[in-house]
Structures are given as structure tokens and as C-alpha cells.
């Protein structure tokens, strides 16, 4: 495999798979915004 193809492949993996890992880890660490405005209670869930 040529050097340029290898570099592009590794860079793509780092950015795309790394982006997935970073966004997933970021979400796991801070799943919700703790400063939401008051209110916004949910509608009841249907039973049927």
C-alpha cells in the first residue's frame, strides 16, 4: 500500500471513528443539560 493511501486511510479512520468515539464519550459523560429552563413535563405516555 502506498504511503499516501495509508495516510489518508488512517486519517479518515481517526476523524470518523474518532468522531464517533468522542461524541459518544461526551454524551455518556454529560447525557443531559443540567441548566434547562423550568417546565417541560412530559405528555402522558399512551397505554394502548
Amino acid at each position, binding site marked *: 500500500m502506498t504511503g499516501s*493511501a495509508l495516510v*489518508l486511510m488512517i486519517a479518515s479512520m481517526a476523524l470518523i471513528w474518532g*468522531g464517533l468515539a468522542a*461524541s459518544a464519550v461526551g*454524551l455518556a459523560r454529560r447525557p*443531559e443539560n*443540567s441548566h434547562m429552563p423550568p417546565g417541560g413535563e*412530559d405528555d402522558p405516555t399512551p397505554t394502548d
Partner: protein
Amino acid sequence: MAQQPTSAPAGDSASPQKREHWSGQTAFILAAIGSAVGLGNIWRFPGEAYENGGGAFMVPYLIALLTAGIPILFLENAIGHRFRGSAPLAMRRVHRNAEGVGWFHVAICFVIGLYYTAVIAWSLSYFWFSFGLDYADDPAGFFFNDYLQLGSDVTLSAQIVPSVALPLILVWALTIGILALGIHKGVERLNVVGIPLLVVTFGILAFRALSLPGASDGIEALFTPDFSVLTDPEVWIAAYGQVFFSLSLAYGVMITYASYRRRRSNVTGPALVVAFGNSSFSLLAGLAVFATLGFLAQTQGVGVDELENITGVSLSFVTFPAVIAQMPGGQFFGALFFASLVLAGLTSLISVIQTISAAFQDKFGWNPRIAAVAVGLVSAVLSVLGFSTASGLYLLDTVDQWSNQLGIVAGAVGMIAAALWFGRRGHELERHLAAVSTIRPGRYWPVLINVIALLLIYMFVSKAVSLAIDGYGGYPTWYVVVFGWGTILFIGAAGVLMPWLRWHKDIAHPTLWPSREQLGLPAEVGAKVTEQYRPGKDTP
């Protein structure tokens, strides 16, 4: 200016007691990934990358993902989450004259659902055929002549092909059954099981593909960069198109899925996971497909650049069967490949049909079961009549071209125009996302959306001119007019006519949360915004 919904008192939204919810954030993310990851990730992305500069394509692709894919995904999530409805209902609440944009989206879903099911049915058949390697001797002849029984004349055949019709009916029955169970028990369960299963199945396939002799030649062909393409506008258009079509954007799916999230939910964080998750699967598919093509090239003693049929239907149903026939343990590899197509396709199909079903539930007050059966049965009959016949492939190719390349792009422009230009909801949606999410889109996000709209208008006009002047695929003019432009006419007519039908109850005064006051906005939509907004600090 027409009166628009602001922040009315609680308790008057359209059937709030009937809006279903995802069980949690993970369920939503899996369902949204299930919608985004579809057949295109497996058969379109690798070929697009290869034909548009190889490794160099990743530069415009990533830029397109960050500047268009994610911003539009945020927009759809914001519309669905804030205005809490299917595409027509949410768009009606964005602007009183924008309901038609939502029905335009729904009509695109209807058209896509008709033929997408057919491809899943073919994949289901080929999953079965893989165990006996029925297609091994002559993959092209088997697919076009023995299986599809494709006629040589491009016309509309009335001859139903039972081997296609049977799995097609099966896929529709499965789809109706899943949708009738509702969001939580049906759509969510399918994705919670289906997406991890897809990742495992396709992961094993990719691992096997990468261990094949010649795999590295294929990977090298995929990633060898041709940086000269970076000055070619067509390559940039291809990158934006790939990102756009791949993320299930602009036909109401993400609006609908976001509307089933609870109000106090993080919107942008999960959307980011969905966007990167979708691209991650595309990259994995690129590696698996080109590793396999590298093996095929070595077996045939040719270069990867000499191979034909490396994208779309031909890649999956002609080229891959040829590879499967030649590799040790081909049955297993074939079963994995076609099972992946079925899973990826089914999770996307469900999202498309749910978008239609949700629209009818909101408009006419139908329950999920009635909507699923009504929408599913009508679609199933048309789907079988149109796509299980001897001319099904021609019809699929034509309808797909117009509904995707023109319909979806027009639907996106309509959505942006309604939300930002006529509805003047840019600030509101940006502040909504900032108020409920962990990642703030920033004040330049609406500006970026406007720039994307201009790009989309250019894409629409250039494609429409090209289709009008050059036709498509060598098909006869009458055929292109009736089934290509006719598709656009049907979608447009749905957008114009459906808003004339009456809503089953008052939907004009939804409960919006956070209220415009909480977002630091004047109560009247369109009034000048002067107040700075700092989420979480100065909300009343």
C-alpha cells in the same frame, strides 16, 4: 403577517395524550442510526468515494458532514422536538402556510417506501439463495433473467414475477406488523435488536473481507488520493450529496423521530452521535466492499480499476454474488452480506413508513395500528403492482432518480425556507437547541443553514436541467416524463392538496417549551430580537 403559534397555555396541543415516546436516549440514537444507515451506506458510499478522488474525497466529505450534514440534522431535530409533530404538523406549527412542505416530505417517503421494499425483498431472496449458491454460475444472468425476469423493453409490464412478489409481500407484512406495535414496542425494539446485530454481522463480514488475498489492493485503490479533484466543483457536489442523502435528511424522518423524544431531552449531543455513527458505518462498508473487490480483481487477474459494476444494484446483486461464488466458505459470506442488506434496509424502511403513518395519525386522529395497516396496505398493493413485475427494475431506477435527486433536495429547500425565511424561526430554534442540549449550535448556525440552502438550490437546478435536457439512463422520453417527472408531480400535488383537508382537532395553538419568553425572545414571532441569551443563567 399571518398569526403563528407562539407560547400558548398548556393543555391545548394536538392530542398530547397520544404522542408516544422513546424509552430513552439510547433507543432514540439507535433508531435514528437505523434510519440513516441504509443500503446507500453499503452500496453507494464506497463507489462514490472511489470515483471522486479516492482518499482525497474524504476531505470534501468530512467538510460536507460538518458544514451541511450535522447542521441540517440539528435543524430537523430542533423542528421535531420543539413543534412536537409529524412533518406536516411540525411544519404547520413552524408557519401556518408550511403544512404542504410536510406533506411533500411525506409523499417522498411514500414513493421511496414503494421501491425500497423491493430491494429488501431481493436481499431477502438472495440471503436464501446464498445457502445453495444458486447464483454462482452466472450472477448477471441469474439476477436479471432468472430472478427479476426483466423484460428487454422499457415499458410498464403487468406480468407479476412470483419469486419477487412473495418476499415483497413478506417484507410488507413484517413492516405493517412492526409499525402497528407502535413506537416503543415496534420501531424501538426493531432498532435496539437490529442495529447491534447489523454491526456484528457486518463486522464479521468486514473482518473476513480484509483477510482475503488481494484485499490490500482494493483498500489501496479506495484510498489512493487524487488531490486534483479538490478543484472540481462536481466532486464537492458529490460529497455534499452523499452526506445529505445518507443521513435520511429532508424527508421528514428526523422531524418525526425527534418528535417522539421527551421535552426535557438533550437534542444536539445524540444527533452528533447519529451523524458520526452513520459515517462510521459508511467507512466500514468502504473497507469491506473494496477489500472484496480487491480479491475479485486478483482472482480475475485484472486491476481494481478495470472492474465494472462497483456501485448500486449491480454491486450487490451481480458483483458480490460473483465474488461469493469464488471464495472458500462463500455461503457464509453471502448470507452475512445479504442479511446486512436486509437489516440495514428494514430499519431505514420502518422510519420512512413511520413518517407517513405519523402524519396520518396527527392529521386524522388515527391510532398507530390503524395508520400502520392503512398506509401499509395501500403501499403494499402499489409496491407489488409496480415493482414485482418484469419491468420493476426500470421503474425503480427512474423513480429513485427523481424522488432522490430532485424531490429530497426540493424538500430541504422548502423546509429551510419555511423555518428560516418565512417562519423566521432561526433564533427560536437555535435558542431551543441551546436551552435543552449539551452542545450549543452557536449563533452562526442559522447563517450556515442559509448558505446550505443556496447550495441545495444550485444542486436542484443543475440536476433538473440535466434531466430535462439529457433524459436519464437512455430510457424513452415518454417513460421519463410519466414516471420521472410524474413522480415529482405526485409529490408536489400531495404538498398542495393535503393541507386542504381538515385536522381532526385544533392544532394551531401548541404548547411550546421552552416558551419564547424563556428563550429571551419577544412573544410575537418575527419581532426584532434585541436581548442577549445565556442559557441556564437568565431564564426566568
